[in-house]
């Protein structure tokens, strides 16, 4: 227990009031829970009345643990039980890859038409400058900037500097936003290698680097040549988050068994200010290209 018996502890003063350490701890815990509920994001609230909020807090907490455990078990069970499903999906992926290649071919031809006809296709990107107020590279690789919903920011807005791409907004509050930088282990964006037919997925790694995975050719009859060190890696725009063509990194000289290593162009340790895309015109542009309008 937190106390010792009064007879065994000569230092303990006589009880003169009703305040005890346990009471203080309980009050502070209740105060902390109250702060969490008060400042919790509105979209995560399911309860409406104060009573419901107090009741739902521990319930939500337990549900989170329970659902996490259940999901883990289900994923584990699914891994063992769905081999036939995997085979079927593999065949489906193969068909989709062929279809994807054909569509990319059409997209290239479409772009060639646009270039030949000199149609206007430039989108006016609106950006908002923000100052980096803190960096946290402990578990996640995040930077915090001094712009939020009050400035029109939402989640998944591209963040970049003149040097290149930084990341995307991960969480947004009224006056501050957390930006997931490219080197975050949970980051994965679609990219292509400049002047080559290669596309792939650029993932962050735990050591703060970038790895280019799932490299594949985008055109039929392209010359197969591995990406060379120093070549630029740019966003492909297929994820509908980043516009196409933003510089994300350069192929590194070092190699790895996981994939092609890429050097980030923006040093997140030293970046002081960033620009945030606030309009989504590029998404409409991508959609119009894909739909052939």
């Amino acid at each position: 227990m937190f106390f010792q018996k009064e007879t065994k502890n000569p230092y303990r003063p006589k009880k003169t009031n009703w305040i005890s350490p346990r009471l203080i701890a309980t009050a502070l815990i209740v105060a902390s829970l109250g702060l969490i509920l008060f400042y919790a994001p509105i979209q995560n609230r399911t309860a409406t009345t104060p009573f419901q909020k107090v009741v739902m807090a521990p319930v939500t907490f337990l549900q989170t643990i329970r659902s996490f455990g259940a999901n883990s078990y289900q994923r584990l069970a699914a891994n063992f039980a769905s081999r036939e499903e995997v085979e079927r999906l593999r065949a489906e992926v193969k068909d989709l890859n062929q279809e994807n290649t054909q569509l990319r071919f059409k997209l290239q031809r479409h772009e060639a038409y646009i270039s030949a006809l000199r149609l206007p296709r430039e989108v006016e990107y609106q950006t908002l400058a923000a100052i980096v107020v803190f960096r946290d590279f402990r578990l996640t690789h995040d930077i915090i900037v001094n712009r939020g919903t009050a400035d029109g920011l939402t989640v998944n807005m591209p963040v970049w500097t003149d040097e290149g791409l930084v990341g995307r907004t991960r969480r947004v509050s009224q006056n501050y936003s957390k930006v997931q930088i490219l080197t975050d282990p949970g980051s994965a964006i679609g990219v292509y290698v400049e002047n080559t037919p290669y596309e792939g997925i650029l993932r962050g790694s735990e050591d703060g680097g970038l790895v280019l995975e799932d490299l594949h050719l985008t055109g039929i009859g392209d010359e197969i040549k591995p990406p060379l060190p120093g070549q630029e890696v740019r966003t492909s725009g297929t994820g509908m988050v980043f516009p196409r063509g933003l510089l994300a990194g350069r192929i590194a000289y070092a190699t790895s068994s996981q994939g092609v290593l890429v050097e980030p162009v923006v040093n997140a340790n030293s970046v002081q200010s960033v620009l945030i895309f606030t309009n989504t015109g590029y998404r409409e542009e991508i959609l119009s290209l894909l739909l052939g309008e």
Partner: protein
Amino acid sequence: MASFLILAVSLMVDLSIRVFPQLGVYTPDVLLLGVIYLALRRPMGEAYLAAFLAGIAFDAVLWDHIGLHSLLYVLAAAGVLKLRTWLWAQYAISRWLIAYIIVMGVRFGEVIMWLSYLGYEVPLSFERYVLWGPVVSGLLFAMVPWRQSPIRLGKRIPQVLFSEK
């Protein structure tokens, strides 16, 4: 006053060490170590209050959910007060064990809360963060100078709420 000075210094070191050495998941939780130190050396009420304020400051500076770390740090202080009746903190191995258990518990709490808010966007280093990261914090806390005489802390420290001064 000394407690808050310790917390202020711990917070500054904590914030600095997160950025510059680039230790990733092995970054020691210096502020939490300060809370553990106060929970071992100071009266209970002062330790709880210091833990609560440290958590509020941490959440405010790191722009985390306000109240999250104050809750975890108060629970950590309660855990330390429990552990100090079982372990003799004047030994380095005991201090390492205390710090490891407490830091691991707090990090587990952080991850649970992150899972709640981030929509299962679980970082890849989840296990390393919770299980192996606290080892470094424990080693750092084990190096803290301590009184060598083998007196059990639970009976040495006066069980009062706040310092008389």
